């Protein structure tokens, strides 16, 4: 069954692409097989991340961007993340509403995902879903994060170009110099620029960038857009490709992607070790005993952790 899915992904069969993402997202037994077999076919797509507060216009901007990318003849994948309920595990995935105009375009593939417990603005399987779309031959993949606050910055780990969407009247100038989301943008979009305060927001971002000085080689662009009438969309499109040219010509793209692979390997090692350790200690008598000893202050968690580790067999996580 997994062979059929893998073959389907590589042949751009929409049903199998969709199925592969589900299997991976659901932590199915075939997850590793699928991912490792499609891996040689990845690395060709350019990944754009769009983040910003709820209702800032992320989905509408993705819709506009889909139009300009398609005009250029590029095939596009979209992964739109919406929050999963921490109480019921359910989710309303509503980002598609703004993108349905492109639903019938065979060169566009849109997938909605729930965060399923992940807190950084993406879902746990977003990265893998990008790999599936990449292997299925998408030239550009757009990741739309959940509506974020100030510190959900996971998107920079996976996007080549990160776009932060702001709207006018989002607070005073101190907001722009805070750490977190204001630091991650390669491009700032001031959307809903027809509303009062757009000029001020744009100039405050600009002043913030002036303060930052020479920390980064790329000075983020600031683009004003109105998705309702399409104003500024070509500028946004242009800014993305300028940033891509910068990354390619400066050698940054190679550097960033290499760093990403190193982190992926470390993540995988961590995950394997963690599950192996957990398998061996959960329900073990030693674990229970030590917990009780720590409760009564006969020993401490640091000594106990060291003691448990000496008894762990890590051979299992090497296969």
């Amino acid at each position, binding site marked *: 069954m997994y062979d059929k899915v893998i073959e389907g992904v590589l042949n751009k069969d*929409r*049903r199998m*692409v*969709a*199925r592969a*993402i*589900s299997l991976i*997202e*659901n*932590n*199915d*037994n075939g997850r590793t097989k699928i991912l490792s077999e499609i891996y040689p076919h990845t690395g060709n797509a350019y990944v754009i991340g769009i983040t910003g507060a709820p209702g800032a216009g992320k989905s509408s901007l993705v819709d506009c961007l889909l139009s300009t990318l398609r005009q250029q003849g590029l095939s596009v994948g979209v992964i739109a993340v919406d929050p*999963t*309920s921490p109480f*019921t*595990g*359910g*989710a*309303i*995935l*509503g980002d*598609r*509403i703004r993108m*349905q105009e492109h*639903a*019938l375009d065979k060169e566009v*593939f*849109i*997938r*909605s995902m*729930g965060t*399923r417990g992940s807190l950084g603005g993406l879902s746990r399987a977003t990265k893998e879903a990008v790999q599936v779309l990449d292997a299925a031959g998408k030239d550009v993949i757009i990741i739309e994060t959940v509506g974020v606050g100030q510190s959900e910055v996971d998107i920079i780990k996976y996007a080549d170009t990160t776009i932060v969407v702001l709207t006018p009247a989002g607070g005073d100038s101190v907001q722009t110099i805070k750490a977190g989301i204001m630091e991650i943008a390669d491009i700032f979009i001031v959307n809903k620029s027809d509303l009062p305060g757009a000029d001020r927001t744009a100039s405050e971002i600009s002043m913030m960038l002036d303060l930052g000085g020479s920390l980064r080689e790329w000075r983020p662009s600031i683009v004003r857009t109105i998705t309702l009438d399409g104003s500024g969309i070509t500028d946004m499109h242009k800014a993305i490709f300028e940033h891509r040219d910068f990354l390619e010509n400066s050698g940054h793209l190679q550097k960033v992607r290499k760093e990403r692979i190193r982190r992926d390997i470390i993540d995988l090692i961590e995950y394997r070790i963690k599950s192996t350790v957990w398998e061996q200690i959960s329900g073990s008598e030693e674990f229970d005993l030590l917990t009780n000893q720590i409760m009564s202050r006969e020993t401490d968690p640091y000594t106990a952790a060291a003691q448990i580790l000496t008894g762990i067999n890590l051979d299992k996580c090497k296969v």
Partner: protein
Amino acid sequence: MNTARKIRVLVAKPGLDGHDRGAKVVARALRDAGMEVVYTGLHQTPEQVVEAAIQEDVDMVGLSILSGAHLTIFPRICELLKENGAEDIMVMGGGIIPDDDMQELLANGHAQALFTPGTVTADIINWIHEAMKDRLS
């Protein structure tokens, strides 16, 4: 180890009526029952609904129709699902559907279940859990 399997449902409003209160109530109820609900908004063509169902890899499509076009739209959606090799995606629906038409849609297999005004959301959830039993085990 299939621990994270979630029921995914597409809630869609095909056709020309603009009354989405019912669709939203159902979407919310399914969310609260732990399902992932993809909502595509108003005025969808059957082609858009089916394409979204495929890309989102949903288990089930829920159609809300209050325009009277149910005898056209349900069969068309089933036809398109079949053309795309996706007839395993179940179809349920709700709205203003006369009894006779309901019998016809169910008998022809153009809908697996229909829920008309007055339905308790728990009934819909129970039906989905029942229908999904085989796939989740």
